[in-house]
């Protein structure tokens, strides 16, 4: 831990405030019930030293100074000495007891937390999650309890499915980030590690917690302990919970839960999920998600390892603009009615996107939708021969409608270059497959595949700044007059960030810088952070957001000069680094066919027959 090591640039970091004022209402039944619940379901919870068992974190930042996002009025005053707090927000009856603190709807008043007797409820949730024992025993214990834990950071190539993990094992508890999805009725839907069945009682407790807080018209948002942050997110009939020791901000974790939610939506649509649960409150959604666990697993691994998710921007492969243009033109020419997006991907990075005019006129494709698409393709179609035709929803574009995705690799058997065509017409498979054949043919004529094969990401050394090790640059609107996909550019991670551990460590540093920059209570424009093994500088302006990583010996003056150089280099290279002028085509004879917004003319969820399953 090296938090004392850092100094601020012009701006100041968030200060650790004094212990909050003590405001101690009389015994409140929320906390009491929580502990009762705990004692009931986890009699052996007792006092468990939560900290002791957790493998050492490599994250260089201390969370003591974390800011709980979103609730400004409260945030600044809380934390510090407080080991555990359970924060809820909203509505009239503000209950404050022990370490449970809620916020009043009328804003101003202090929802203060207290320090005394802080061990139970909030801590308990964490403890119980860490301890999840008893009823579970014997259920999920097929696998071995391997000591091959991912020591806090990277996913070591485990050779067993996480589904088979022994949820009673210490190694299960030590996962850096758990994610659970459950229904409002408390039915387990997904768990990142261990099978949902084995964890059903744990999920039950979580749900009991959520609904108990709800019954007082409050919403449970997060629980903190020394080692863990527990974040709750309720979306419609689904409750998502993240238990993390990653030291990320609550806001970042909630953002990640949102990605999980959206990925579920991308498979089922929001409309069908709400309809299903309207009809049957205790529906077991796993029936519909069975087989999709890998897609969610893959998403969570990406979220941990790919900064695209943190930056909410798309990373495209650097490409000579002439080549990118010629690829775009090929896509632009191969069209059929109701085709709305044509996307070319190499090694899971974007080469180009061409989109339909009318559909996109009023909007642009959201980076998150692209991330979800890429993940879905990666996790479900990789290395498959054949041409895939499957419904998919782009939740940010329209959470209630399906597109039909045609997915095919252009270079079998290597399967690195993937073509993705999205249509609004369920029946369009053969017409869309015909577009692929045109594209294939044009690419053969122009020798595109072998040109693509030579393309690779770039090295930071090309920038020509000796102390610069890595950076992430996200311009706002490239170029200014095109409302288009938000992108960022970043070189390969090279030594000393070649090992998985080191990569993750750098990403954690970036995540920390990001959380400071985007802190709701105290957003910063510039942070100069001297860590033990490197120096980081993050800078946000109206034009861009930039994260840079330097060798530790760089001086502040050097870093500033380096950044000037870097910005100049990016400017010079931007045609290569970004998809600059996204071409469009027109395929919808009737503009009202746009699938965006309210009434759409395409099939919605009912058409996929979910209701018949109830």
């Amino acid at each position, binding site marked *: 831990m090296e938090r004392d090591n850092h100094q601020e640039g012009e701006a100041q970091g968030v200060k650790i405030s004094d212990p909050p004022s003590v405001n101690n209402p009389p015994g409140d039944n929320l906390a009491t019930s929580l502990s009762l619940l705990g004692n009931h379901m986890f009699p052996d919870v007792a006092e468990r030293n939560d900290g002791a068992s957790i493998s050492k974190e490599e994250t260089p930042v201390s969370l003591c100074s974390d800011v709980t996002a979103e609730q400004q009025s409260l945030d600044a005053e809380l934390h510090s000495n407080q080991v555990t707090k359970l924060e809820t927000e909203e509505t009239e009856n503000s209950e404050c007891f022990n370490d449970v603190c809620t916020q009043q709807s009328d804003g101003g008043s202090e929802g203060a937390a207290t320090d005394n007797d802080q061990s139970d409820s909030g801590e308990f949730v964490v403890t119980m999650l860490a301890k999840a024992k008893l009823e579970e025993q014997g259920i999920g214990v097929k696998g071995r309890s391997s000591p091959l834990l991912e020591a806090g950071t990277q996913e070591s190539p485990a050779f067993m499915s*996480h589904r088979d993990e022994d949820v009673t094992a210490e190694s299960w508890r030590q996962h850096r980030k758990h994610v659970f999805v459950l229904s409002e009725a408390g039915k387990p839907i997904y768990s990142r590690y261990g099978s949902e069945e084995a964890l059903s009682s744990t999920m039950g407790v979580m749900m009991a917690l959520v609904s108990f807080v709800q019954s007082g018209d409050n919403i449970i948002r997060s629980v903190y302990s020394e080692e863990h942050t527990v974040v709750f997110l309720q979306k419609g009939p689904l409750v998502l919970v993240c238990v993390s020791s990653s030291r990320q901000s609550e806001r970042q974790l909630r953002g990640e839960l949102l990605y999980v939610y959206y990925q579920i939506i991308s498979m089922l649509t929001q409309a069908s999920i709400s309809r299903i649960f309207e009809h049957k409150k205790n529906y077991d959604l796993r029936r519909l998600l069975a087989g999709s666990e*890998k897609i969610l697993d893959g998403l969570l691994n990406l979220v941990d390892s790919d900064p695209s998710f943190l930056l909410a921007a798309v990373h495209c492969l650097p490409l000579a603009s002439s080549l990118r243009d010629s690829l775009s033109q090929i896509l632009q020419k191969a069209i059929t009615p109701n085709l709305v997006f044509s996307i070319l991907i190499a090694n*899971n990075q974007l080469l180009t996107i061409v989109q339909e005019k009318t559909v996109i006129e009023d909007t642009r494709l959201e980076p998150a939708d692209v991330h979800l698409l890429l993940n879905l393709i990666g*996790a*479900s179609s990789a*290395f498959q021969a*054949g041409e895939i035709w499957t419904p998919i929803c782009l939740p940010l574009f329209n959470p209630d409608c399906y597109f039909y995705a045609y997915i095919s690799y252009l270079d079998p058997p290597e399967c690195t270059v993937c073509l993705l065509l999205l249509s609004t017409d369920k029946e369009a498979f053969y017409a869309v497959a*015909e577009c692929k054949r045109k594209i294939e043919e044009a690419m053969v004529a122009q020798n595109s595949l072998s040109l693509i094969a030579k393309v690779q990401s770039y090295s930071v050394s090309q920038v020509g700044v000796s102390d610069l090790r890595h950076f992430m640059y996200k311009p706002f609107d490239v170029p200014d007059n095109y409302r288009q996909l938000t992108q960022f550019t970043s070189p390969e991670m090279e030594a000393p960030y070649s090992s998985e551990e080191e990569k993750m460590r750098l990403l954690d540093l970036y995540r920390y810088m990001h959380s400071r920059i985007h802190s709701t209570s105290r957003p910063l424009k510039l942070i100069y952070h001297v860590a033990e093994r490197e120096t980081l500088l993050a800078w946000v302006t109206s034009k861009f957001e930039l994260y840079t990583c330097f060798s530790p010996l760089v001086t502040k003056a050097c870093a500033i000069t380096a950044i000037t150089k870097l910005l100049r280099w990016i400017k010079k290279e931007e045609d290569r680094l970004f998809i600059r002028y996204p071409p469009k085509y027109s395929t919808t004879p009737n503009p009202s066919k746009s699938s965006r917004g309210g009434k759409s003319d395409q099939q919605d969820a009912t058409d996929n027959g979910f209701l018949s399953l109830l």
Partner: protein
Amino acid sequence: MPELSKMKKPDVKVVLLGDMNVGKTSLLHRYTERKFKDTISTVGGAFFLKQWGPYNISIWDTAGREQFHGLGSMYCRGAAAIILTYDVTNWQSLSELEERFLSLTDTANHDCIYALVGNKVDLTDPKAHQSQDSDVASEDRTDSEDMRTEPQLPTPPTSPASLSGVMLQKQVTPEDAAALYGRILRYKGLDETSSQPAEKMCFETSAKTGYNVDSLFEALFDLVLPSILRQRNENQESPTVDLEECRGSSNKRAKSSCC
């Protein structure tokens, strides 16, 4: 549009249906790629084109997951043959065929033929341990898993038997399958005497060892030929469909079976 770019128009459509995990994708892999490899649960449907002598046969490998249930009837539209697949070690997978999948076949051709395929017999029958195909090595599982998804065990063993060699209890007998076949004919309003007999249309296979896999596909392809010929005749009257003439492909598997 240049000649080359024309899609080889499929002459006939064959659809694989059945619950998730019964081995539809594995069967098709075994047949087309001659090996048994790791699969990912299918999303939507995957389209393959198979040359069978002078004919192009399109094969739809569909997802068994309930999530994609509503699409089944679309994949089945105009099908000439439907392979209803179950897992011999799992009774539920057979009853799902009747409860969930049979109704999807309503959009198939009226003369569509139905095959009932009990896969994974390698788990229950020692005889299924040899494939009849000489070119099949029986344990060539390749590990070409997707790199982006988390690394996995070579699929959590469907049953301990696949590892230990202990035979599993067979939950579905050929008689059960034949009885279901009879019910399918009745559901379709077909006359048992004029339809293919159950003995001919019920198969037990192993995608893992290759047992009976070629026989299944080849028997089906031979049976759908009349359907191909009929379609070709119909198409001759319709100028919109452009047929690609058979390009003298020398498919070694075409054999004499193609008239």
